[in-house]
């Protein structure tokens, strides 16, 4: 496994860049308290009153918002929320998709039928509108995005994994496991699951970018939590505080760049990983 992962990075520049970007943001998130120069939510004052819309300076690297908050510190703390949302959504999609795909593919019959009908319904729901309604239903929280992604994106992973399981089920070693009296549970999770884990990982890594983009959109639309600093929240704050007409690029450009970096890193990793999984694409 480790040798396999090492091979991916040795041969693939995309994946290496993606992983470097993630490592960078993980470090930033861990050491956010040390890196941030101010409390991100504190309203700053100076001797001449509220420190609003200040240009970049040594005290405020990226200046301040129209409420006198430090933009740089918000940006640093925002990485925590993005990582938490992205990684938990990836986990949700990978776990749900894997379990559903395994059960559906292994048992077949009415269970398979039911699960595939549920998949059609999940794919029939418009994604972002559903997240908005869910956020209104459950109250503002970053977890809404994770729940919605789990609820709506498992079919993509589930269907692919299911078809993989269908072919694995017919293999000789599964047959012999059955004959030797293995329980279905044991066959599914011990004999079949390890073979489809790479696929689970692939769909999980695709979900990271989706989750971060969705979280940003939901916060931007004003359905996110107001006490958690996220990049989407920063953009919403900037948009509603006339940062656009003030030309405060330094306020709304950096959060967007962070989102792009994080999402593109997810794309790069899944792309690199795909080339290893399906080497036909490479030539």
């Amino acid at each position, binding site marked *: 496994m480790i040798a396999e992962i090492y091979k991916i990075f040795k041969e693939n520049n995309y994946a290496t860049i993606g992983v470097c970007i993630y490592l960078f943001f993980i470090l930033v998130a861990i050491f956010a308290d040390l890196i941030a120069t101010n409390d991100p939510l504190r309203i700053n004052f100076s001797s001449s009153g509220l420190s609003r819309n200040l240009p970049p300076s040594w005290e405020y690297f990226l200046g301040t918002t129209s409420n006198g908050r430090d933009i740089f510190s918000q940006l640093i703390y925002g990485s925590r929320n993005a990582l938490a949302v992205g990684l938990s959504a990836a986990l949700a999609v990978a776990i749900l998709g894997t379990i559903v795909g395994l059960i559906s593919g292994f048992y077949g019959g009415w269970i398979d039928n039911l699960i595939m009908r549920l998949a059609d319904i999940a794919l*029939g729901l*418009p994604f972002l509108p559903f997240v*908005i309604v869910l956020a209104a239903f459950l109250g503002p929280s970053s977890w809404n995005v994770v729940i919605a992604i789990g609820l709506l994106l498992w079919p993509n992973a589930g269907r692919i994994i299911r078809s993989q399981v269908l072919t694995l089920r017919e293999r000789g070693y599964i047959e012999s496991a059955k004959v030797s009296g293995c329980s279905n549970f044991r066959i599914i999770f011990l004999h079949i699951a390890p073979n489809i884990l790479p696929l689970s990982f692939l769909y999980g890594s695709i979900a990271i970018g989706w989750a971060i983009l969705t979280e940003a959109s939901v916060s931007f639309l004003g359905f996110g939590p107001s006490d958690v600093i996220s990049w989407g929240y920063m953009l919403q704050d900037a*948009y509603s505080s006339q940062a656009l007409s003030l030309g405060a690029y330094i306020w709304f450009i950096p959060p967007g760049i962070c989102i792009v970096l994080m999402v*593109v890193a997810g794309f790069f990793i899944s792309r690199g990983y795909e080339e290893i999984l399906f080497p036909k694409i490479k030539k």
Partner: protein
Amino acid sequence: MFDFWSIVRRFLYMLFVLWIVATIIFFMFRLMPGSPLTAFIGTTFTDEQHDLLVKRFGLDKSLFEQYTLFIVNTLKGDFGLSFTYNKPVINMIIEALPNSIILTLFSLVIAYIFGVIAGAYLAWKRATFIEGFSIPIVLTTRSAPEFWLGMIALAFFSFQLDIFPSGGTSAAGVIYETTLSKLTSLHFYYHLILPSLVLALYLQGLPLLLMRSNMLEVMQEDFVTMSKMKGLSSWRIVIYHAARNALLPVATAFTLGVGFAFGGNVVIETVFSWPGLGRLLVFAVSSSDYPLAQGAFIFLTAILILMNFLADLLYLFLDPRVSYKTKN
């Protein structure tokens, strides 16, 4: 031709999915914490006024009665009255729908024309510096949040350079008398340019990458090799033989893209204050206007499901492998 009954079956199945989604949405709104009228009723309302409103919106009936009424009314095209505007929801949706359709189609057409040409070009330039340089750029534009691109475009083109309007479909004070007069007004299209270009920038990645990988695949097939041996020019091979076949999945993706873009337009419409269906939904949800939110959501879902259905059909029609098999 292909099997008529399988299409009917698919169509009925589509209606079934729509019904399930409508049911989920109905119960989500009904089970939301708090009275649905809290946002609507002023503090100065008397108890009688309150009761009258509750009756008027049918909130005094049992949940089951409300549900059957909702399904019957929805089938009749009646989505009830908006809490905030006190107008029939269906009228508000019909007013917003053309704006959304035009924005979506306009951007999709720009995105797909550009994406298909650029994708074919990049496949042709396989393993060159141009390709190595372009693909990461394409992936990056796909990763940027639409609303953020919109914010940059607004700050730069509207506020700084002042060459495009900052939102809406008309200048302040101008009201289009009919939908037709709006759709024939140049002013409307002037307002359309910025949002649709931003949306197109976001949407072009999919057709581009799809076209490129299809082209790479098709170029390796026997009939392309055959054309080369016949001595046809490489340009002719690319246009007449390879591109034609590579376009099939792109056409399907376009149809799927219409349904998908409708849902995603929620953010772009909000940034540009574009009075479409998505913005209506955001407004309705944030002001707890349940009938309006329900109606807008069901419309968005119907469009998405219908487009998925059409994409299926299109695939049957266009893919020679599928239609050939059924013809014989």
